[in-house]
């Protein structure tokens, strides 16, 4: 089977994000960009499926500006087979991304789409579920374990109460949680090889999808800052403060 893995280019996990002074968004110029960490886990899972002979081909897709090609190359260096960039300079909201992915799924015919449960920039946690809905496929979200057998995907999900396992009839969409696997680092020879792998570029117009944003961002602001409090010198002092000053116990 083919596996399709969408990956998103986001501000790096370790960067301290700053809100722009005009309230129009966050500072993205001269900021390190990386692959969304949950998507790295998705790439890793797909590559393992190919290495174990379950999958024949792993197709990496990214959607956004031209520089997303770098994100695709990173995924190809991890073991993806070829890439597709849906190039668009405007804002792409999750519904539009899901619609673009649906078109690509119909062209490429994968039996499984694996993607991160959420991107660490907009924290929306929507795209996988939306794609499953548009395709009429089942969804296994927040996966910490994935097994494929007899036309089914068994997905163990991280839910608020613990773990839950569902069986999905293939084709299906799976979104990754943190404990699914530990993504590999791409080795230098593989990074070199990835530069030669096929990477096609298409536009939303090519795919016939209207990507006009539905949500308007009116402003982006700093959250109220907590000011650090006091250091206490002993347990005794801590208990005294909690009882008599904070009055929380």
């Amino acid at each position, binding site marked *: 089977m083919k596996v399709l893995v969408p990956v998103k280019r986001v501000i790096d996990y370790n960067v301290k994000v700053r809100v722009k002074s005009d309230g129009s968004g966050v500072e993205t110029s001269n900021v390190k960009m990386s692959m969304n960490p949950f998507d790295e886990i998705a790439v890793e899972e797909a590559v393992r499926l190919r290495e174990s002979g379950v999958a024949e081909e792993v197709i990496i897709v990214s959607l956004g500006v031209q520089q997303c090609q770098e994100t695709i190359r990173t995924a190809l260096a991890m073991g993806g087979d070829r890439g597709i960039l849906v190039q668009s300079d405007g804002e792409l909201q999750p519904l539009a991304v899901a619609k673009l992915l649906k078109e690509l799924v119909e062209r490429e015919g994968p039996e499984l789409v694996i993607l991160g449960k959420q991107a660490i920039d907009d924290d929306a946690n929507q795209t996988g579920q939306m794609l499953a809905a548009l395709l009429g496929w089942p969804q296994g979200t*927040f996966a910490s374990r994935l097994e494929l057998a007899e036309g089914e995907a068994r997905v163990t999900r991280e*839910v*608020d109460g613990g773990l839950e396992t569902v069986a999905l009839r293939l084709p299906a969409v799976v979104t990754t949680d*943190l404990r699914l696997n530990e993504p590999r680092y791409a080795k230098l020879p593989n990074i070199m090889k990835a530069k030669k792998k096929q990477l096609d570029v298409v536009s939303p117009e090519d795919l016939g999808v209207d990507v006009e944003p539905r*949500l308007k961002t009116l402003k*982006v602001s700093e959250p109220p800052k907590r000011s650090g409090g006091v250091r206490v010198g002993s347990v005794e002092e801590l208990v005294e403060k909690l009882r008599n000053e904070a009055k929380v*116990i």
Partner: protein
Amino acid sequence: MAVLVIAEHEESVLAPSTLATVTAARAIDDAVDVLVAGDGCEAVVRQACAVEGVRRVRVADGGHLAHGLAENVATVVVGLAGDYAHVLAPASTFGKNLMPRVAALLDVQQISDVTAVESADTFVRPIYAGNALATVQSGDAVKVVTVRPTAFEKAAESGGAGEVEQVDAGSDSGLSRFVDQQLTSSDRPELTAAPIVVSGGRGLGSGENFRLLEELADVLGAAIGASRAAVDAGYVPNDYQVGQTGKVVAPDLYIAVGISGAIQHLAGMEGSKVIVAINKDEDAPIFEIADYGLVGDLFEVVPELTRKLGS
């Protein structure tokens, strides 16, 4: 136009997150209906009817709606959405799984994890692990919204007199089925609803050492949480995780033990009323946001704290 709240429930109990979502709904419109979808949920229906401000409880009952399977529940919600300008659910794993499916079927861009209602079409939501707040306005005909439960007071569990109405439960999609679950059983209060949370990080060093936190939690009647590092290391199960991609908590008192305070963890607990940090590293970032910081060896400090609070 009215607001529909999708109830989160476990077997026979309405989840507290539903009560917070009702409060968010009432900030939009006075007419609030609740959908209870599940298998044999008479007790939940009774509880939902009693919630203050609930006008009507719509009930979809069927075996295929057990365990909140998104493929089947989404169809029911979409069938009812035409009666509403807003459809809301808690931003728990239940709501996060279900609502984008509903939104896509309605051709709507969902608004995730809102922390404030500015008007019927404008909402505030955290982005970048809570390092920024976005105010967004929706132009969609139906607003599909998930609500951060800790950002809204819980609606009163009594005083309401909602009418019950059975609705079409649809049929099994055949796409997915529930296999089994391993839920963490605990006599402690639920993590996201507890007034006091004791949380442990990598500094605990092992799962066994969480015993120290359990003893402290017993004295305080607290829930136990953890940082991602502690969960990844296998000290405690995944459902303990507090943070950007885990649970968001906002108790009256949050005691962070052996947690350095990565921004991803702070995103899940910064809304707590009082934060205490216990860490041997005096430069740990957690101290920058803690109301009371105690630099010291947790293996000495925590047992002493337990003793002092217990006496």
